[in-house]
């Protein structure tokens, strides 16, 4: 059974024939892309013209996202930017604290149980002139139920008095840098850092498995993928206990599940030996739409949380250097065992010192275990300098840069965290490509919204939220950006032989677009409209989710 789809334009990402008018699909895979006459040679077919006025691209690949974005949409969105939920509703951005409180009041009014917690997410006071939300503000929403809103960065939580009471923290005499106090000596309701957030977070609906998605969350995450043209997405860092793996296997196997999910096993909480053993077990459970068997190692924290590890001269505002989340010994052990066992690792490094450590450990590991095609990938890697990109290239490493970051937090990095010079070189896409480092770009959803075409726009324009161009020389062109969100990302997952381009033998994974990203202009890339996706030949219109 062969179907040939016609399209206004097919962007193949295959340099031998970059454009086509038709693509033939059989059994969920691509027979070929070309003209109708060329494809007719495959025998009997049905001509499907539903995409005749659309542009078809390879299904987009998000190389760094978290399926928990699906779960978060059950909470109240209070972000500054407009954002689409899994059901296609666009929630308008809120430009001040009053707007945030109004939206929370609406949510409060819609809840029947007066004691149930009210969680909100994606607050970002940077856009409110850094005016902080206080517990008194949130008390205006409710004094009976615990209310808590998570910042967009995920590093800070603001709560009301009721939530503090429930956690036993409505008292004076607290002495913790993560708990700022008001003039009355009581906490202001702002809680900074995971350890401080947890004891209160559980009372406002942000509980232990927030980083893991549940069944509904996974289904909702997949809807967001369809709406943004994504057919393959990572769930980058989960503990992956048996229950979660069973749930994910069951849900992704459903005939109407539209996304290939690639979950990576988080290194924390187990010894290197246990980690390797677990991942080898996980590999056996891999399936077509659930690709298991990779490791994510978190090396440091975040730049805006001042927990990233920085080389000299450190933070622009003089903040103390950040935190290591793994020792060099354990990192080396994981790298060495993974090279021995052919396990694929992605490392989270934000600061350039953390990146340097990974490069050092890789260099040492590869001497002992030469590996021709390991494709270990530095994730975020936001502050790497040119010398570090040269080393990545020599060591056969890939990079997945956080292109969205300089739009959302670029101004803050410029003014506060790393200062002008390093802010301009952050997420150095052009330098990566000049040095032949295989590169992807990412959203880190839910930290920023899932949407590779938006991410591509960020990398092409390097605009910050205030409208400044930050790092002119690190801009890449539209073709390079489109490659990064398809084959580039697929390569970092060792899936480039299966997905990422439209050519004979590959999966019939397509992003179906209303506009042509190649001709709309780099400055308009984010405005390309997505009709939906085709995944393994199955058609998923966003309008019918």
């Amino acid at each position, binding site marked *: 059974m062969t179907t040939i789809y016609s399209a206004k334009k097919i962007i193949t990402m295959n340099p031998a024939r970059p454009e086509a008018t038709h693509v033939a699909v059989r059994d969920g895979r691509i027979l070929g892309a070309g003209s109708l006459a060329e494809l007719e040679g495959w025998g009997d077919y049905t001509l499907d013209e539903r995409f005749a006025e659309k542009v078809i691209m390879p299904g987009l690949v998000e190389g760094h996202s978290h399926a928990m974005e699906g779960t978060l949409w059950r909470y109240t969105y209070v972000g500054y930017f407009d954002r689409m939920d899994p059901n296609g509703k666009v929630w308008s951005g809120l430009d001040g604290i009053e707007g945030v409180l109004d939206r929370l009041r609406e949510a409060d009014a819609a809840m029947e149980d007066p004691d149930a917690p009210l969680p909100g997410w994606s607050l970002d006071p940077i856009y409110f002139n850094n005016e902080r939300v206080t517990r008194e503000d949130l008390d205006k929403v409710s004094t009976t139920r615990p209310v808590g809103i998570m910042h967009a960065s995920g590093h800070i939580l603001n709560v009301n008095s009721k939530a503090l009471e429930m956690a036993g923290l409505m008292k004076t005499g607290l002495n913790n840098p993560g708990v700022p106090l008001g003039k009355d000596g009581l906490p202001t309701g702002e809680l900074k850092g995971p*350890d401080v957030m947890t*004891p209160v977070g559980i009372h406002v609906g942000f509980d232990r498995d927030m980083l893991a998605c549940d069944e509904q969350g996974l289904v909702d995450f997949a809807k967001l993928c369809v709406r943004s043209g994504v057919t393959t997405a990572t769930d980058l860092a989960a503990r992956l206990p048996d229950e979660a793996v069973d749930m994910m296997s069951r849900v992704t196997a459903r005939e109407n599940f539209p996304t290939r999910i690639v979950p990576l096993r988080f290194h924390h909480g187990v010894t290197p030996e246990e980690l390797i053993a677990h991942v080898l077990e996980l590999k056996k459970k891999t399936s077509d739409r659930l690709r298991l068997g990779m490791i994510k190692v978190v090396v440091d924290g975040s730049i805006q949380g001042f927990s990233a590890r920085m080389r000299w001269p450190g933070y622009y505002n003089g903040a103390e250097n950040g935190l290591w989340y793994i*020792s060099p010994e354990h990192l080396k052990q994981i790298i060495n065992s993974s090279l021995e066992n052919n396990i694929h690792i992605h490392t989270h490094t934000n600061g350039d010192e953390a990146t340097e450590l990974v490069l050092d450990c890789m260099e040492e590991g590869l001497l002992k275990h030469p590996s021709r095609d390991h494709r270990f990938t530095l994730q975020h890697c936001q502050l790497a300098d040119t010398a570090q990109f040269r080393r990545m290239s020599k060591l056969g490493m890939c990079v997945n840069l956080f292109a969205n970051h300089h739009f959302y937090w670029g101004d803050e990095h410029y003014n506060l965290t790393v200062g002008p010079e390093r802010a301009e070189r952050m997420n150095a896409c052009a330098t990566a490509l000049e040095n032949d480092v295989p590169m992807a770009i990412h959203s880190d959803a839910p930290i920023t919204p899932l949407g590779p075409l938006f991410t591509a726009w960020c990398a092409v324009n390097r605009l910050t939220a205030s409208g400044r161009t930050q790092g002119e020389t690190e801009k890449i062109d539209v073709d390079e950006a489109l490659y990064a969100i398809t084959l580039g990302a697929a390569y970092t997952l060792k899936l480039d032989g299966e997905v990422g381009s439209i050519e004979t033998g590959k999966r019939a994974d397509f992003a179906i677009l209303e506009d042509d990203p190649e001709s709309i202009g780099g400055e308009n890339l984010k405005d390309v409209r997505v009709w939906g996706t085709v995944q393994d030949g199955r058609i998923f219109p966003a309008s019918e989710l």
Partner: protein
Amino acid sequence: MPVTVIGGYLGSGKTTLVNHLLRNADGRRLAILVNEFGELPIDADLIEADDGDVISLTGGCVCCSYGNDLMMALMDMAKMEPRPDHIILESSGVALPGAIAGSVSLLNDYSLDGILVLTDAETVQERANDKYMADTILRQLQDANIILLNKIDLISDDKKAALNDWLQEKTQSATIIHTQNSVVPIEIALQSFEHDGGFSADRSTHSTSQFETKFFALNNSIDVKALAEELAEVPEIVRAKGFVQNEDGVLKTLQLVGQRFEITPAPNEVEAGIVVIGMKPLPELKTLAATG
């Protein structure tokens, strides 16, 4: 529930210390929280039940791994019946124990007793110069109330003194104790630096190969400050605590850790007497002997 945080870099002897404390719990129901079970070699005969994240041990002790969520593990532990007598929280090799202690202090069910940081005498200075780990190691030392200068048997006497001076300079005010195989009396390891809950170790004469404990019943009055200064000068003494009748006849509480001491009014209805814990052999403490 009192909490003692145990920090220190990889290979400094944290796991050995935890095992040593478990074997010498002496009736205390200890709850050990470790980042991961890893190399924790709990003798099989001590294990009563093992359900993955929690290992129940004989004598009411328990060992839990907290993985990536320490705070949730602590909140779960607060619901445990019967409640443990003391929580020992082993932090990861790269963690800053002071930050962990700060987080623990936010939980109403817990009170922080102190931070003990282990160092490997052979490698600590090298690590403190490491390209990547230097500031982490130094911040760990600054956070400590007690530093165990462990594996002391592996370095020469000359080096011991120099190392001790170096550590003294790097730490704020920690008591430095020289140990071998992480062996330290449980009363010292788990003592409280944060609040005065009365001296409970005085009835225990628990000792190990390296330490000894002496009790002096003090029948006569003495200048407490002078006594404290004298004891502080005895390098073998790591800790002393008791109630002493001052020259003016008023009963005082004397607490001494290393070279630091504190003199406060004594509670009502206590008897004069002092416990001294120190490295073996404790020299003859003539003033105390004379006062008793």
